[in-house]
């Protein structure tokens, strides 16, 4: 209990320091507004918002302000996706796909205002749950992670890439793994971290320092989105917004257990490496439907269904930052973009991270969630108007923003070529239903995997048993193997038969 109080005291100090700085609000309000705008416009995503702001603010302003801008946009965008989900039945972001199931029927039934009020409140509560889980668990895990050595780090990085590939695949799981391996392969370019041996540079000096993370992020997340978005998507038939946008306290009180459960699920899913808010929303929605007494109402305008998905996707934010801050492994695609921001500021997330940064991240998340809540209640009509802006007007400006952001981080034209190349490859991969998140996570974790894997062998004089002789490493080897085997068709069928027998 003393530990919890000391954490809260530390958080209070960090919160106060940020709250009395007027510049905080300048970045906070503008970034949350931009985030909600990105979320509200179908085709623009939370990942894109964080990626573009990483390019624009990443290493140009003090880290605290950069984090305010990025986390504000992250929180805002995840929430903003609920607007088109409810009013247009088009999820603004993948995270809000489950929200559309009940949000749109509610809007069609003339309860759009109530639905938006509920999602605003649920998103706020969800973010707070995830944030406080981050505040408490990050320290517990940091304590554990101090005992993590090179073998565990290598296996954790591999597990993150494999898990992300497994869970993010829309088509075949193998495609997720291929994407992860392509990302790892990209990370191999440049001077190797132990011997400074040049690898795959083809005589181009620019490649000696490897692929820069920001142009890769921009290329992987922004360019395909822009190409896809220029497909001339007409804004659909918008449901009329009736009723005032106010938090329905009676419903919140009634469904408090649902909200709490969804917050916990969202945080848990977020803590899984590379999975993200969309999975959190669907998992929570599925669980809600299973355990609810009114499960049959889900999909027909159920308040409980709406709260299940919307609480979870925002709670996922705090969860996704746990593995990022503790291990340097991003818990979601936007967190991967955030990792890029840490990297270009020479901050290494992981066991050696400055604890003050974690406290500031928590304080920023709380401030961002309050800002989002206030904006959601009082400026919702502005975002509804923004919904009517065609993508064809917005996306060319996003392209220009991407170009200048990518150029300014490295200060060279080669970064733009890299961004464009990665962008076209990512678009092709999207066309063939390869998930992009594992690729980016592979690029980010590649050098960590390479370095720690070889260092483990170096310290054990080439003895491979170093990966099974330590308890933590052995568990991680088992997890990696189990994850791979679980996707083998033969094992899948055997597992299904076993389930059939026990049923």
């Amino acid at each position, binding site marked *: 209990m003393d530990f919890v109080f000391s954490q809260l005291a530390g958080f209070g100090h960090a919160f106060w320091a940020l709250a009395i700085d007027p510049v905080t609000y300048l970045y906070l309000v503008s970034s949350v507004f931009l985030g909600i705008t990105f979320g509200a416009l179908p085709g623009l995503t939370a990942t894109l918002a964080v990626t573009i702001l990483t390019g624009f*603010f990443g290493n140009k302003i003090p880290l605290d302000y950069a984090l305010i801008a990025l986390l504000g946009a992250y929180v805002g965008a995840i929430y903003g996706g609920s607007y088109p989900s409810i009013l247009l039945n088009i999820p603004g972001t993948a995270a809000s796909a489950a929200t559309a199931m009940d949000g749109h029927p509610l809007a069609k039934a003339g309860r759009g205002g109530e639905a938006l009020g509920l999602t605003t409140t649920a998103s706020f509560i969800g973010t707070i749950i995830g944030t406080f889980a981050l505040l408490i668990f990050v320290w517990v895990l940091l304590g554990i992670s101090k005992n993590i050595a090179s073998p565990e780090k290598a296996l954790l990085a591999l597990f993150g890439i494999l898990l992300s590939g497994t869970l993010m695949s829309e088509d075949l799981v193998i495609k997720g793994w291929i994407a992860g391996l392509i990302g790892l392969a990209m990370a191999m370019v440049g001077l190797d971290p*132990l011997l400074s041996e040049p690898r795959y540079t083809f005589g181009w000096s620019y490649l000696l320092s490897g692929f820069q993370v920001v142009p890769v992020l921009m290329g992987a997340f922004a360019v395909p989105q822009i190409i896809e978005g220029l497909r001339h998507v007409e804004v659909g038939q918008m449901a009329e917004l009736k009723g005032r946008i106010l938090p329905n306290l009676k419903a919140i009180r009634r469904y408090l257990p649902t909200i709490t459960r969804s917050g916990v699920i969202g945080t848990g899913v977020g803590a899984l490496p590379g999975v993200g808010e969309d999975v959190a929303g669907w998992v929570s929605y599925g669980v809600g439907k299973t355990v609810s007494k009114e499960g049959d109402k889900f999909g027909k305008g159920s308040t409980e269904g709406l709260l299940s998905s919307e609480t979870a996707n925002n709670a996922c934010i705090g969860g996704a930052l746990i593995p990022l801050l503790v291990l340097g492994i991003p818990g979601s695609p936007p967190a991967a973009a955030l990792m890029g921001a840490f990297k270009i500021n020479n901050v290494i997330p992981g066991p050696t991270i400055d604890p003050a940064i974690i406290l500031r991240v928590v304080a920023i998340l709380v401030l961002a969630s309050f800002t989002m809540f206030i904006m959601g209640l009082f400026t919702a009509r502005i975002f509804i108007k923004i919904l009517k802006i065609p993508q064809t007007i917005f996306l060319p400006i996003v392209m220009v923003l991407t*170009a200048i952001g990518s150029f300014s981080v490295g200060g060279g034209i080669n970064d*733009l070529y890299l961004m*464009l190349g990665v962008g076209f490859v990512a678009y092709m991969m999207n066309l063939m239903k390869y998930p992009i998140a594992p690729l980016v996570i592979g690029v980010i974790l590649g050098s960590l995997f390479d370095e720690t894997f070889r260092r483990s*062998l170096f310290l054990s004089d080439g003895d491979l048993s170093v990966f099974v002789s330590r308890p933590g490493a052995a568990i991680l080897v088992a997890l990696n193997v189990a994850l791979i085997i679980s996707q083998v068709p033969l094992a899948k069928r055997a597992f299904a038969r076993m389930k059939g027998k026990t049923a």
Partner: protein
Amino acid sequence: MAPQQDETAVLRARDFWASLALIALSLFFLWKTSAIPLFGENRAGVSGADWYTSAALVPLGIFGGLFVLACILLSIAIRSGGAAHALSAVGIGWDRAEAQRFGTIAVMLFFYIAGLVPRVDFIIASGLLITAMIFGYHGGHARRALLSAAVVALAGAYALIAHGPQAEWNAHSDDWLTLFCWIGLTVPVLRASRQERVLRIVPLLAFFAPFILVCAMAFGFRQNVPARGGLFFKQIEYHYYVTLRPLWKD
């Protein structure tokens, strides 16, 4: 064929080609990796690294894994009929309109990034791109997209050909040509805006968006921006430091 089956058939046909490309790519990089010393070596009498610290170790695993996964994908694609559909237009999901759309966007992005951004004033280059993209894709008019792509390609190709080497990036002839292209493309945009009111804001967006961005980046964040010697930016920078800044500095 049901739509779902149809989509899967298209995917498997694409997977067939993708797996072949991945096999080729992984074999190529495995060959490239063979150039990195693996079992230690002697360089000028100094013993090199052991196999387990070799820079080739992890890449071998990665490209080996990629090769295996690509082979599995190939077998899945063949068993699902991907190879049978591989050469038919329907099989790979070829859609002329879609291909044209992607082609025009790719042309615009390529010439913008490779030709215009390094050489042409950022405001002019981005103004042309914004105008071309909005005019080309708003409303889904295929001919407009072709015209827009052609205009951007013309400006970009001229910049690439006329001022290819970095030593010539400060020349202004490509700035002027791009500016004329931008103005030229704005004329049909304004004409079309009689029917489509939303197009009226295009000239404003096309100028002010890159103008604000480049000024924020250069003077707000004090970062490097592309083509500092560009037609507009050179003047903006001069007047910022000579005319405006002394007002609050002194």
